[in-house]
């Protein structure tokens, strides 16, 4: 049986919905991974040992084990201890924290690299350490790592396909459902690939806009 792309149009709606869910879960996870990354970086650098060590252990777990396993644990595992999360929420938590750990590594390095005179100048004006971190150190560190964080976000988009296994109707699962009805694997997977690529281009445009906004500071 040859290729027949005329099988696609009846499923445009399904695929479009899949695209929307993929964008939704990627955006939500990206936001969580960004702010989570900042929080983890601040904890890693400034929190007392009693807080820092457990966080480091959890970070190590997120970095050292497969994301797929983490999603299974959060979605299927937590139910056993009475935490029954909707699949979308479980997916956002899994993806968000996984990439928060990676973002935090980048942000930590950048925070250490911010000139010590910046913290001193802020403290001299009367800012508390917390205020100085929020207003002076973190914003500069984050601006310095927008490009590598952007790369993490592209990876996040691609890894969002994994949440299909816990039943989030994102693009990959939508394609699978269409294949289940038509037995046209190549056409639908190819269509999904093209759609991922287009979302990817959109994300890159957004990232470039962020980077350009920061040109002036240097």
């Amino acid at each position, binding site marked *: 049986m040859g290729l027949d792309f005329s099988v696609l149009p009846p499923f445009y709606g399904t695929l479009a919905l899949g695209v929307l869910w993929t964008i939704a879960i990627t955006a939500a996870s990206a936001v969580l991974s960004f702010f989570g990354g900042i929080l983890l970086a601040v904890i890693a650098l400034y929190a007392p040992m009693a807080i820092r060590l457990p966080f480091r252990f959890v970070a190590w777990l997120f970095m050292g084990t497969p994301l797929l396993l983490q999603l299974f644990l959060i979605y299927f595992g937590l139910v056993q201890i009475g935490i029954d999360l909707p699949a979308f929420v479980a997916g956002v938590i899994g993806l968000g924290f996984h990439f928060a750990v990676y973002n935090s590594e980048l942000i930590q390095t950048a925070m250490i690299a911010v000139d010590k005179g910046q913290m001193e100048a802020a403290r*001299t004006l009367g800012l508390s350490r917390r205020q100085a971190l929020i207003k002076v150190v973190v914003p500069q560190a984050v601006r310095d790592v927008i490009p590598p964080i952007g790369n993490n976000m592209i990876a996040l988009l691609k890894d969002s396909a994994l949440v299909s296994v816990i039943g989030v109707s994102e693009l990959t699962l939508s394609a699978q459902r269409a294949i289940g009805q038509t037995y046209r694997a190549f056409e639908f997977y190819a269509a999904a690939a093209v759609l991922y690529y287009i979302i990817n281009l959109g994300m890159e445009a957004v990232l470039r806009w962020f980077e350009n906004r920061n040109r002036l500071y240097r």
Partner: protein
Amino acid sequence: MSQAFVEIRHAQKSYGQLEVLKDISLNVDRGQIVAIIGPSGSGKSTLLRAINDLDPLTGGEIWLDGVQVNKALPHRQYEKHINQMRQEIGMVFQHFNLFPHLTVRENVTMAPKLLKKISDKEANALAEEQLDHVGMLERIDYYPAQLSGGQKQRVAIARALAMKPKLMLFDEATSALDPELVEEVNLVMKKLAQEHMTMIIVTHEMDFAASVCDRVLFMDQGVVVEEGPPEQVFKNPTQERTRNFLRKHLEGAK
């Protein structure tokens, strides 16, 4: 007992075995301008940074306007206290330390907005007033990266003044500047002197110190070797070490 506006009492500071400040006492009256001179490594910056507790003393007391800056308090209370005190002590650094991610305006308004809870409108008026004062109003919406060194330092002075400090500390404010940019910063400092701002100025510019300061301190190896009015310290130093330093400095300047 009457107190001076700024009092440093028996300041002592050690880094491990290294004693950087050895029992230094200094009184500064309201509106007075004191210059601190001395060779590199003599403890000038350490003394200045002890006044606002950036480098806490290991012994001695700092008083400003009847309040002890470095008083012994439990950690949390101390943090509150020192943040309050620092609002009253402006500091200007050799390398400006402007916030590069903020515009000139935001550099000036950030602390007053955050700490004094003033409105955006008041903050803008404050920024315009302070920047006008240092001749930088035209660059109010520039970023620090777009300014020359002299302009950066003038903005840094405006940023400090926006907190309406009782005391200004300058740590070699012109040392990092190209020679042709020194004068514009000196002019701003002279203007503050005319307005009777209380200032402690660490400097290696003897001419500037002689022309604006009421008193000069010569420090060497963690002690005040000699102090007095500029005419005396510069023209008739009583100490051999002062004479040596000034002679070397003159030769270096040639």
